[in-house]
């Protein structure tokens, strides 16, 4: 047995007393096997990785009945012995490849430093580095050695880090969300790479991720975490195929799928409790959100029960039997675009080219962000824009909104030519509103919620009275499913999902006919994402507002939008009804995008072996 953990507890000292952040976590990793640690942010999955690395933040303390690596107790190991182990026998793959590499040193020198630590003689380092980089299918590795990390893409940096991790032929690799910061197609490459290397070296892998579907495809075993508790553990196929614990089931049901009938997502109420709240939760920490909880749940900490072969669930008999209160198979109602009202938005050969003018000393080369974009949106219609980072989808959103002026082409909003931002600005912001990606940045931290959502009433000529603003704010909070009590709060006092709702409420204040949503769910956890997606569905139904929904997540677009535009390198390469495009893609790029998404059917091999080419 490679890594054997029994009853791991991590506690933190808070002003109110010691709180258990991880409770009685047990798992094992065998050589050549992958264990997936799955959970939403704050579930404690990265904490386990930190315990392995011995990198707990101050005031956190770990205890365990057993925490052995090859029979050595990791928690009792002296710092010197532990240092010898880490990076050599136990290697790490970080989440942010770009920030894990030193930007002022070349890839080669950092790699060789790592090899020097492993005791590789000076003469062999360069050759070993080139060989390791070749192993992760980076083309012409010799040339890469003299490049700096910022000259490489995120995917290439992650390959370098993976090559580094495997260069010592480690027994255990801890990968903490190694693909979260990367695009879908890159994610597929990285995942297949990790699997290939892990099989070749017979390495055990601890794969930390928030994506249950990805874990089901990659891992042999899955451990699902919720607020520091291991709620379910078992073979990947069993946990994903027949999840028992209400939380695992909810997690699965909250993820929109790419195939099959479109069903209403079952969104859990509320959010996961934060560390401060954990102290007052002696029993099941999921109880307050659980559809089948009884009063006893919140009081007693249930033991793990074996429900199938090596499949363990923590909970009451109701949990282990796999029953949920309501099994929703509710089909998603189609929102009918009101074609009678005509088009809201029409773009004609819109292009945006940045730079390109000669400055005093050097010639700047122009960058084409958007090129020849022509499409129109009917009133009440939802159109998805998909593509990878840098494909120009955010620029497109800013052009439509008028935050930037196109270099050529024309934009028509509500029948008026609004190519240039300025002349009809007031009319424009009445017709169209934008929901920004990151609510933490889009909400002024100095304004209260009530003030934020009615910000558009504050402007010149419309100095609304206090009473009117308050009433409008209350109506908007009700519309977006927020409690009235939030009115006097500041954004920093809200959860991520609540902030995104406030963000949406503000865009709705002027009652626009078109909403432009730029990646508004990508920063949210799955269960909160489901809440926001359902909210958007409801708002479309009730307000008849058209939606431009920009996302890199194809399944989310499928859930929300009737029509989809696929963007690649600033060009719209494919467009059509969502179902048609996704079931019978014609453009090779669309096909590549679709193939990169882990399918819901875990029997289908993923990633497909087509991704064998090297990248340069």
């Amino acid at each position: 047995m490679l890594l054997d953990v029994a009853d791991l507890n991590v506690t933190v000292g808070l002003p109110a007393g010691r709180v258990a952040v991880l409770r009685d976590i047990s798992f094992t990793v065998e050589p050549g096997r992958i264990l997936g640690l799955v959970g939403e942010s704050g579930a404690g999955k990265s904490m386990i990785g930190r315990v392995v690395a011995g990198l707990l933040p101050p005031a956190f303390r770990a205890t365990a009945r057993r925490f052995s690596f090859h029979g050595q107790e990791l928690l009792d190991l002296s710092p010197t012995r532990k240092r010898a182990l880490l990076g050599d026998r136990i290697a790490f793959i970080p989440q942010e490849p770009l920030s894990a590499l030193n930007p002022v040193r070349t890839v080669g020198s950092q790699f060789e430093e790592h090899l020097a630590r492993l005791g590789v003689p000076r003469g062999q380092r360069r050759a070993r580095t080139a060989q390791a980089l070749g192993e992760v299918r980076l083309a012409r590795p010799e040339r890469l050695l003299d490049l700096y990390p910022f000259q490489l893409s995120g995917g290439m940096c992650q390959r370098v880090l993976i090559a580094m991790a495997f260069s010592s032929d480690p027994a255990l690799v801890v990968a903490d969300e190694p693909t979260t910061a990367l695009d879908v197609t890159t994610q597929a490459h990285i995942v297949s790479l990790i699997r290939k290397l892990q099989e070749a070296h017979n390495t055990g892998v601890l794969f930390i991720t928030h994506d249950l579907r990805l874990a089901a495809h990659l891992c042999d075993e899955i451990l699902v975490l919720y607020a520091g508790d291991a709620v379910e553990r078992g073979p990947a196929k069993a946990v994903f195929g027949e999840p028992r614990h209400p939380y695992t089931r909810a997690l699965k049901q909250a993820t929109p799928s790419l195939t099959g009938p479109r069903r209403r997502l079952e969104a859990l109420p509320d959010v996961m409790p934060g560390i401060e709240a954990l102290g007052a939760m002696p029993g099941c920490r999921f109880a307050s959100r659980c559809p089948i909880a009884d009063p006893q749940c919140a009081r007693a900490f249930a033991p793990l029960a074996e429900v199938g072969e090596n499949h363990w669930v923590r909970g009451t008999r109701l949990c282990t039997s796999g029953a949920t209160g309501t099994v929703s198979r509710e089909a998603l109602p189609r929102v009918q675009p009101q074609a009678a009202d005509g088009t809201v938005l029409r773009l004609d050969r819109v292009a945006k080219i940045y730079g390109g003018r000669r400055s005093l000393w050097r010639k700047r080369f122009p960058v084409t962000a958007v090129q020849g974009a022509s499409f129109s949106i009917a009133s009440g219609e939802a159109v998805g824009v998909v593509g990878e980072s840098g494909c120009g989808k955010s620029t497109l959103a800013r052009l439509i909104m008028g935050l930037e002026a196109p270099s050529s082409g024309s934009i028509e909003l509500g029948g008026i030519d609004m190519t240039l931002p300025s002349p009809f600005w007031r009319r424009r912001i009445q017709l169209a509103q934008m929901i920004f990606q990151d609510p933490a940045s889009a909400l002024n931290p100095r304004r209260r919620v009530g003030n934020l959502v009615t910000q558009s009433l504050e402007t010149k000529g419309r100095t609304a009275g206090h009473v009117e603003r308050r009433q409008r704010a209350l109506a908007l909070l009700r519309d977006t499913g927020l409690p009235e009590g939030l009115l006097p709060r500041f954004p920093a006092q809200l959860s991520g999902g609540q902030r995104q709702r406030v963000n949406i409420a503000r865009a709705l204040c002027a009652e626009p006919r078109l909403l432009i949503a730029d990646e508004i769910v990508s920063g949210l956890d799955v269960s909160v994402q489901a809440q926001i997606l359902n909210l958007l569905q409801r708002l479309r139904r009730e307000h008849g507002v058209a939606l431009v929904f920009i996302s890199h997540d194809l399944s989310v677009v499928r859930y929300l939008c009737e029509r989809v535009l696929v963007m690649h390198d600033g060009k719209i390469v494919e467009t059509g009804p969502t179902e048609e495009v996704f079931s019978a893609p014609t453009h090779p790029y669309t096909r590549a995008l679709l193939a990169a998404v882990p399918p819901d059917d875990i029997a289908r091999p993923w990633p497909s072996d087509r991704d064998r080419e090297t990248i340069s």
Partner: protein
Amino acid sequence: MIGPGATLRRCLGEPRVQAGGALMIVLLLVAVFAPILAPHDPGDQDLLRTLAPPVWTFGGDWSYPLGTDSLGRDVLSRLIFGARVAMRVALFAALGAAALGSALALIAGYYGGWADWIIGRAVDVWMSFPPVILSLILMVGFGAGLNNVIVAIIIVDWTRFCRVVRSEVMTVTKRDYIPAARLAGFTHMQVILKEIVPAVTPLLLTLVSIEMGIAVVVEAILSFVGLSVEPDVAAWGVMIADARQSMYEAPWSLVAPVFAIFVSVLAANLLGDGLRRSVDPRLAQRLVVVR
């Protein structure tokens, strides 16, 4: 717990702010109530008792607690009236420099482009002049007088504000709530006044407080060389200049104004440092955990 109210509470809880603020308030009160507090008129000469020692030394006398100078004027009264000059310069010069500097910084940071280029180069050129020499030249041109001192300090020191505030404005302008405010129908002016100015105010307060200390020193330098206030006005710099000739016989008339300058600069710096600590998120690491 969170929000603007919390920042204010955190500021007031910071010991540096408490100490610096208390000293500053005392200095301001002394300046305001100088005619009531001072035992003598600062210009009154007692030619029979020149260079009198302070009370606690041999030959001291309660009628001149800090002694007298070479012309028989009461050092304490001159010190108290000197605070009027110092505090007026500190307050108005710092606020004026802040207003000019941050107005230009807002334009440069918000609009960017050529406006930013021009203002940025102007700051570069300005900062390459030695500040003391520049203010001396200005005073020679303007002539003596308290208001001219204030104007000179503003003209010399606005760049300090412009540089720092500009970069802060640029950081704030990159946040999504700025385009969001535009989409709510705010004009550029409204965006600047309602979204950006509140965001840079904490920084501005810090800078003003530090600038107050600098203004006190600059005024002292100018009055020391006789280019600041009219000769009949009591100022700390003038006191130092007057005490030079008799500093071996009566060191107290030199030490007293130096100490007053020291206290006011210390107060300003403590206040500024404390404010910076409590409003800068990188320094205001509130650890919730206990070890």
